[in-house]
């Protein structure tokens, strides 16, 4: 059994069938980490001993029949902005470089409850601010296909770790595309659920009204299994929803006949790379041939999404990041004179350039006299974007488009022009502003061999439709993706 090419569902089945143990699976993944980590740097923290001990315990519980689900015994990674009890949680920032939480995020708890074993914490853009994982205070992660390229971000460590077999599934967080875009760049599946589906308790906030945790995985079935495990109504999170019908794995059936899929013309205009465009339109063709009704339409409001997003997200971030002040935990400057000097030096030394830029931007848009002109206007824009989607979903079951305008850029080519980097979020950001679910599924490669992602967007609470379409595409589409490599994994093959 080639453990590293197994999906979570296959691996858990293999463990259940006693073909392999959870400990052996963990050992194989740890071995892969040893081989790859030096080159790719997916993790901020790896705890092999804890992982092996935990795997042994999970194995015991599987044998005792206490754990039977599709994630039991599966090695998993967690983005470093989710609290993990007694395990370093840094947000890839110097300011939290020594922070060890006393509690675990609800999503992490739910993942562990399902029997997944956490290996460690994955690298990310500092406080999830960035699209390349290059703003990490601990150095960038490299693209699994070509290490000279970025893995995307901000959940770049999670996406690359899944692609490299440094874990089987991973949790990421998505504020403006931070799950879907790195999934697209790394050739894996990334799913951002409806806002409120997964508890944010223990997720270190960037833009609270936009942040949502979701899975990164080798295929759609794993994404559905992880989403099902981490979905919960959490009373500790006031924005958590009490959702019904969250058996997302039940949507893993092939069939798109009669599904109405809209393609926004606004997503295929200037700035979209030709190869990406072709791959995404080809994916639409695949779905059409499978019986879906495909239609082009004008979504509208697309050009307003980026300014609205960068106003709202940075405003919330400027406030959310105030607690990092050197008083209670985390980094504190060594020498200072008085309280205010301590605050200034701690935060100047503790935060990186991109975080400071966004804190300043956010502070500006909230400041007295500008609040109405910027923040309130952005909230109104957000409402109009939501309205545009509502109108689209009156006609369509799903919206189809690219995840990002290009494939993964080269390391070092993005940060010099932040505005250009922000524009790269154009297809993912409005999904967060409207609170919708979105998924990125591999749909091809460019001429350099870099992966391209297809984005499917559904109306709120319609994850099942989205999962069904994504799963159908994955099963029908013949390309160089994980789903087509599955033959190598054990005897099982759906």
């Amino acid at each position, binding site marked *: 059994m080639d453990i590293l090419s197994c999906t979570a569902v296959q691996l858990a089945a293999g463990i259940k069938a006693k073909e392999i143990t959870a400990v052996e699976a963990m050992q194989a993944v740890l071995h892969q980490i040893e081989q790859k980590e030096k080159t790719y740097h997916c993790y901020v923290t790896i705890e092999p001993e804890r992982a092996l001990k935990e795997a042994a315990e999970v194995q015991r519980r599987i044998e005792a029949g206490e754990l039977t689900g599709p994630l039991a015994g599966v090695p998993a990674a967690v983005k470093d902005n*989710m*609290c993990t009890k007694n395990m370093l*949680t840094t*947000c890839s920032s110097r300011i*939290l470089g020594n*922070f060890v*939480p*006393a*509690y675990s*995020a609800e999503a992490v708890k739910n993942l562990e409850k399902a029997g997944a074993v956490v290996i460690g914490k994955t690298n990310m853009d500092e406080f999830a601010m960035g699209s390349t994982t290059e703003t990490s205070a601990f150095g960038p992660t490299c693209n699994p296909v070509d290490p000279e390229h970025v893995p995307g971000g901000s959940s770049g460590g999670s996406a690359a770790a899944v692609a490299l077999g440094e874990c089987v599934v991973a949790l990421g967080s998505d504020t403006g595309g931070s799950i879907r875009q790195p999934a697209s760049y790394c050739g894996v599946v990334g799913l951002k659920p409806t806002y409120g589906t997964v508890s*944010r*308790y*223990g*997720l*270190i*906030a960037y*833009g*609270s*009204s936009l942040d949502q945790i979701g899975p990164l995985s080798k295929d759609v079935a794993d994404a559905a299994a992880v989403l099902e495990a981490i979905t919960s109504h959490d*009373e*500790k*999170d*006031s*924005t958590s929803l009490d959702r019904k019908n969250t058996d997302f794995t039940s949507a893993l059936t092939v069939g798109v006949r009669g599904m109405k899929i809209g393609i926004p013309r606004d997503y295929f205009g200037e700035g979209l790379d030709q190869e990406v465009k072709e791959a995404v339109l080809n994916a639409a063709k695949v779905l059409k041939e499978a019986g879906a009704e495909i239609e082009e339409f004008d979504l509208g409001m697309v050009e307003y999404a980026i300014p609205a997003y960068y106003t709202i997200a940075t*405003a*919330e971030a*400027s*406030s959310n990041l*105030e*607690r*990092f*002040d050197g*008083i*209670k*935990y985390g980094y504190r400057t060594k020498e200072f004179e008085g*309280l*205010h000097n301590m*605050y200034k030096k701690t935060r100047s030394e503790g935060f990186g350039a991109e975080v400071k830029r966004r804190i300043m931007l956010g*502070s500006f848009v*909230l*400041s*007295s006299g500008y*609040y109405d002109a910027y*923040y309130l206007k952005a909230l109104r824009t957000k409402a109009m974007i939501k309205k545009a989607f509502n109108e689209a979903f009156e006609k369509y079951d799903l919206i189809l488009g690219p995840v990002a305008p290009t494939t993964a850029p080269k390391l070092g080519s993005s940060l010099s022009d932040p505005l250009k980097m922000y524009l790269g979020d154009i297809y993912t950001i409005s999904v967060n502003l409207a609170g919708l679910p979105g998924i990125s599924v591999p749909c091809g490669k460019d001429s350099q061999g870099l992966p391209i992602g297809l984005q499917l967007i559904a109306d709120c609470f319609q994850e099942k439709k989205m999962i069904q379409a994504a799963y159908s595409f994955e099963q029908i589409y013949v390309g160089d993706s994980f789903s087509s490599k599955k033959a190598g994994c054990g005897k099982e093959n759906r």
Partner: protein
Amino acid sequence: MGKIYEIVIGLEVHVELATKTKIFCGCSTEFGGAPNSHTCPVCTGMPGSLPVLNRQVLEYAIAVGLATNCEITRYAKFDRKNYFYPDNPQNYQISQLYLPICRNGHVEIETNAGKKLIGIHEIHMEEDAGKLVHDDWEDCTLVDYNRSGVPLIEIVSEPDMRSAEEVITYLENLRMLISYLGASDCKLQEGSMRADVNLSVREAGSEKYGTRTEMKNLNSFKAITHAIEGERERQIERLEEGKTIIQETRRWDDNKEASFAMRSKEDAQDYRYFPDPDLAPIQVSEKMMDAIRVKQPEFRPEKMARYQQEYDIPTYDIEIITGSKHMADIFEETVAACGQPKKVSNWLMVETMRLLKEHEMDPEDIHFSPVHLAKLIQMIDEKKINGSVGKEVFEQIFEHDVDPEKYVEEKGLLTVNDTGALKKVIEEIVQKNPQSVEDYRSGKEKAIGFLVGQTMKAMQGKADPAQINQILKELL
């Protein structure tokens, strides 16, 4: 020379709500725990923690709003007030700016000048901060987050008050309303009620308000009165000297009886208020409003009017008894059990007040059962015990809530009603005190008092002095 000035005062009153747990987490609000013993990730601002509104806070805030004739905001929100200070673990305070829970109310006050309405601009909910403790020994500052997240409401009045008397009356009315609701004990000294005074002066008859100052750190009615007088004089003096008033926050120093500038408007921080995205907007349903309306108590003015009608007791007694809802409840329950309002009132006014003072307790701390006081009154009426035994028993009721019947029986304090036995004792006393008998017979009425006293002593207090008096007179 000779200008007449008027003072214009508005108050910002912070009231700590009497909830068992904090506003956004399940930690206890109890006072006096070891530093940081009543804390959790939420109230210490740990990364990833999230606030969840304590429903009781909302209910209290709405109840206070209804009691002060406010409009209740049916779609309210919490906002973040951003400022850096170590007692504020998130470096923002969760408060309400844009859509506070209550608006446009009023409280009626009555002073020597007559009745008047004081407008309430708004009431909003917010969280309290922690406490900084300076350690002189180590020369460092420590933070105790036990108070962090304790629920507060801030009641902002309109600038409708014109004298210290009006201010104090307004505060007393507020305190009475809120304590009747059980929403807070409103103790200024202990900080569960804090008032900031916004004050300006203007020439009498002027339409325009003068520049105001805000005074903080006022923790007694006396301090408030002194601060108002002091600030009035300071402002008038400046105006008379041709100087202007600077809009600033001033700190009252009760020992020096003077206020000192803390910060001026120029240093005012930009709090960058915005709606807290971690808390869903508050939707106040009609059902919730009804449930709160039903629970509103009879407030003091209505209660006083009813007592005047229902019970034959002096106005002074009514004022004292209704000064505490708890005391009034005890009064009403005791009267219901024994049907003697005047006697119940006397026990509360005299003995209860004396014991409260002796034990340094507030009326709120009374913990005896009304039925025990009722029984005591009946036992005295039925002459099962006499008045002085009654007082002794009441002390036990007050302190330990004993059942008077059981207590009297156990301690053998029942009055001896066996006339034969009593007569026998009196005869002995008469025999032993021939001089007093002589004195009485020769017209010294007072002498009988001595004989009664001796009999009581011999009976160990368990007799009815009136009965002794009567038997003595018959014998002599």
